[in-house]
């Protein structure tokens, strides 16, 4: 089996995987980082969004072997100890979640938005979240959270 090494949340991690192992399965099953969720498994819902080399990607549609050598950030890599990342804090403050299943992907996607567009408007946020589904339909507070998080981030992560 191919061996992969990648830096996950700042720590170098190596494992042998099958070629067909998806990045999300590598994270969840090999590294026990279960904050990244599998929702649809068909690249639509965005529950599995992580950052690979600083860009948001759907980890259910990325091979672990194709991320060999990459820097990966998951939801577990955002907080600094007990201090939440400003985007996480904004979701908490503005109740940007109901059941919470989509939240890790929402937060990872939102941070990538702010990295690309430091001062997004509501329309920018709604368009950016095209690839993140909330089946509780809690979009109103999610958008409020992302706008507040963008403001708190002060134009970048």
């Amino acid at each position: 089996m191919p061996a992969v090494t990648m830096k996950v949340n700042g720590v170098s991690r190596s494992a042998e995987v099958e070629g067909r192992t998806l990045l999300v399965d590598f994270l969840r099953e090999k590294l026990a980082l279960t904050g990244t969720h599998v929702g649809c498994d068909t690249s639509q819902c965005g529950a599995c969004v992580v950052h690979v080399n600083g860009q948001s990607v759907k980890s259910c549609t990325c091979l672990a072997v194709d991320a060999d050598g990459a820097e990966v950030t998951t939801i577990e890599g955002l907080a600094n100890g007990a201090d939440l990342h400003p985007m996480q804090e904004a979701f908490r403050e503005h109740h940007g979640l109901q059941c919470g299943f989509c939240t890790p992907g929402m937060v990872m996607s939102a941070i990538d938005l702010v990295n690309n567009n430091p001062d997004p408007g509501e329309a920018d946020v709604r368009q950016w979240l095209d690839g993140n589904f909330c089946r509780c339909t809690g979009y109103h507070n999610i958008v409020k959270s992302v706008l507040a998080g963008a403001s708190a981030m002060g134009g970048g992560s």
Partner: protein
Amino acid sequence: MDDFQYHAPSSVDGVLSALRGADDGKVLAGGMSLLPVMKLAMAAPSDLVSLRNVPGLSDIEDHGHCLKIGACCTHAQVAASSVVRERIPALAAMAGRIGDPQVRNRGTIGGSVAHNDPAADYPAACVGLGATIITDRRKISSDDFFGAMFETPLEEDELVTAVCFPIPDRAAYAKFENPASKYAVAGVMVAEDSDGVRVAVTGAGAGVFRVAEMEAALADDFSADAVAGIGVSSDGLLSDNVAGAEYRAHLVTVMAKRAVEACG
């Protein structure tokens, strides 16, 4: 999905030899089409040959009369490129509305054209703008490249390396998108240059097609009114739970009007 032998060579020659050594090899670029197809067991290649270590496939070059876009350029890269936005804004705008941000961060122009999904946006952009597909061994005009659903003239061991887009005088793309996946239920690229007008439709049929009657009408009178009365036959158009063939035929005219209006 079934397992496969994975290769990540560091040159185009390495890619070609890996493909030649495989029973049923497939090229893996961003994987936004191929991996979902493999998950659904609609494809089960024996070998995947990743392009991630091959240098020089992600450049965007302005050649004066055309833009040459490397096969591994992502949709996000094309959408954000200052040269594409300045020279062919319709192409940058089209790339910026493919799928969602995460799909645009991974999906590539080369992968999209090689896959030739009937609902993909790039086939309409290529045919509408009169692009040329460049492979490791030849150049193929878009009119000859895009066959029926998922069909192209690519050989089993042939690699798309770039796509060249002539600079139009004006162009615009309009699509009616699936609300969940953002693929084109019907998408129309309209472009005008010194050779005339081209109207290319994706999403509606089993593959991208041109509408000669609209092209002739627009050459005579470049206005939305000129295409408003021109319909396409619903015979042979796609029909599914999202849109029936007659509705898709209707959308083609509506999207053509919107594209012409957006040309300004």
